């Protein structure tokens, strides 16, 4: 009986329209990306950055732990031995187009070097640009520092 009533008077549609009307008069939440930034949540994981020490030298020691833990195999490291017997990083590449932003690399790093940042502006028109190297990753650190400072936070 109820069914016939509902079918006859379109009650469900009216209910639905009610919801629409309710939101119609509310304040709008649409962000005009890319002209406007969306807020990110505190635990959001964006593009990685790699910390540097006071002298601007990367903290990464090239231990390959992030490479081995990364489930999507997007980190590629090549190391070598320097003249004075130090561990050198010849290459550190991270393919952002493969990264699933799981944050395992951050977890695995024993020296607090790689971190998940808050930047999510990955869009680019060629795939090659998604492969970032140590230089970009340490520059990201500076960017992140500035962003954090602006908010009065510390990395």
């Amino acid at each position, binding site marked *: 009986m109820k069914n016939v009533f509902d079918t006859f008077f379109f009650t469900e549609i009216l209910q639905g329209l009610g919801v629409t009307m309710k939101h119609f008069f509310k304040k709008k939440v649409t962000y005009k990306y890319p002209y406007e930034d969306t807020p990110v949540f505190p635990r959001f994981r964006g593009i990685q950055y790699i910390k540097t020490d006071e002298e601007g030298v990367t903290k990464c020691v090239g231990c390959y732990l992030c490479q081995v833990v990364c489930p999507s195999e997007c980190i590629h490291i090549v190391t070598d031995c320097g003249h004075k*017997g130090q561990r050198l990083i010849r290459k550190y590449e991270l393919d952002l187009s493969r990264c699933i932003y799981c944050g395992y690399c951050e977890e695995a790093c024993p020296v607090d070097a790689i971190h998940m940042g808050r930047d999510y502006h990955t869009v680019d028109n060629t795939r090659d640009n998604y492969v970032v190297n140590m230089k970009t990753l340490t520059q990201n650190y500076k960017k992140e520092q500035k962003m954090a400072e602006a908010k009065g936070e510390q990395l």
Partner: protein
Amino acid sequence: MQMVNLKINGIEVEVPKDSTILQAAEKAGVHIPVLCHDARLNPFGACRVCLVEAVGNPRLMTACTTPAAPDMEILTNTEKLQKIRKTVMELLLINHPLECPVCDKGGECTLQDLTYETGLTNVRFDAEPNNTEVDHTNPFIERDIDRCVLCGRCVRICDEVVNIQAISFVNRGTETMIGTAFDQPWNCEFCGQCISVCPVGSLNNRVYLFKNRPWNLESVDSVCGLCSCGCYIKLDHEGNEVFRMNEAPEEGANHGYLCAKGRFGFEFINSMERETECRIRKNGDFETVDFEQALDTVSEKLGAIKSEYGSDAIGVLVSPRLTNEEAFLAQKFAREVIGTTNVYSLEPTTSLPEATYEDVENSDCVVTLNIDVTESNPILGLAVRKAARMNDAGLYVYYPSETALKRVATEMHTGTPDAVYAAMDELVAGKTKAAEALKGAENPVVVYSPYNTADLYYAQELKKAYPSLKLVAARSKNNSQGVLDMGAKNGFGPGLKETERGVNLRKGLENQSVKALICLGENVAVRTGWSEIERAYSHLELFMVTDPFMSETAKRGNVYIPVATYAEKNGSFTNLEGRVQEVQKAVDKGVCTDSDVIAALSAKLGKELTADVDEIREMIRKENPLYKDVDFNGGLVKYPYAIKGEFEKETVAAGEGSFYLYPAALRLHSGSYTRWSHDLAKVYGDAKLIINDKDAEAAGIESGNEVAVKAGDVIRVFAAEVDKNMTKGCVSLPEDYADTADLFTKGRVLKVSIEKSG
């Protein structure tokens, strides 16, 4: 054998008397953690990680040193033991730097593994790391003393196995560390055995240092291709780069030991200096061509030469670098495709393997004739040392100067080459103590060089006098034996069957009857007796050389084809024991193998030869009676004779001059491959003239000076190295360098005059 019964964690086991609890546990399948223990070394009991509990005994005992006694009941994993093990680990970690991310041992570190195994997360004691500088001065061993856990494995292996005693514990108590006496530079055999046993990152392989991590590497079982010892190795590689030539502890005929060449000299495989393109000489200059073009040129030339001069104007020279399969294919190519018996190897067939390493290790009397075996064949050298030290065998050494065997030798006969031969005469005459020892011995062994006719005479005489004697012909190259077995030798078919003889290579080159030479991997220009034949090459209408590098010989050829090293092909090598072992392909450097070249060339000449290893092996089984039933994976070949032929007792040195010159082996180099390794070259790059300190002083020569050596009309200049162990009145030079080969062409032992030059 007397056995004892005991119980380990409730499991009954029976082990031979004198076994340790650890061995019993192994048999019972019970795991006991160890740190300082190594099965190849004497029990030591330094780290206390292996503590176990015996029921009814309040004292804990170390499983690695305590003998298993009848009716023991051992518990290995009680709560009490877990607690104690944890404490032991905590104590070990007090002054350990824990820089695992940087440390090269990360991923294969026993200390790391044990920390994980014991579940240690928090150390109760305050960390007190030392801060000693890392020692990078050694070209092969990086030493970070802070990470050392004082297990003594390095000290023990260097003493018990290598017998060099280069390192030891220095200082006492908390100051104890591993070092050399009086802090001298670490200058030893550089065998790297100490690195291989160090359970932590205290002694690291400098050549591999920081290049990669173990979990990235793939490993292939293979055989070292640098000398005739035939060591079983692991080729650790990632992508197409070889990162390590690693030992397989306790495995293979070499028991997992390696020498400096094998452990550190692999770099030539990855070398940027390797060639990838074929070359053809046009109007005097090399021109790059592709593989097809090169082969076309060769096959056209071969066809033309064959129709003009007949097939006997063509020769095929096979180097011992080739695998058995390749050598077999090469002789087939010569005999069946070209139709000539002119197939050559520079190796002699006069002596064949008779004894194995095991025979040497278990011998009760070893004689080495005129060979510095620890240098020329380091792993055979270890077996000789083991016999002399572990079974107290008599070791009688005949060599012009003092060698590393001095520490263990019962008697050392040194002196000028003539004096050494005189001593060997006495030995043969049966008058000396060594002869007595040979007579009384049950398993006597004689090690000699098969390349020296004079020594062959003595070896043969000894064999006649003592029939129970086993002879070890210390061949030099990785497949010196195999290429002969495969019939890549003038007058010898597969299985060393005597066949029709072709043109003598030297004569054929000199009288210009050989017009084309196909040289597979041999670097003739640096081989004694062949280096000066350069003039003879110039008439060759075709001189094709295959080699991974542009070698001295390749530069003189008119067609060059780059080929693979042993790390890039499948096949087998036969070592100096006559043991056939499989070589496996690990990497691909984008060049073909020698068998590919032969197969492609045959196809061009209208006959199909397969390059497939399995198919070739089938053929070998059919056509080579010696290899009919041999297991290619470690089987021993039974040879028909140990020495055959008549030898002159030519012991008088050729030439005139005040010094005796004789060839000495160089541990770090074994022919032309190793010289492409920059790491090895750091220690011994060029041929050095070794001279006694008194003689050097008299001639005003110091280490590093340039010295001209004159033998007849040949004058060559070398850097000198002053060495106290050299016999007065003698000088030595290594073989297999272009300059030294020129000298030794005049004779194995020479009288020369030397003069400081420049």
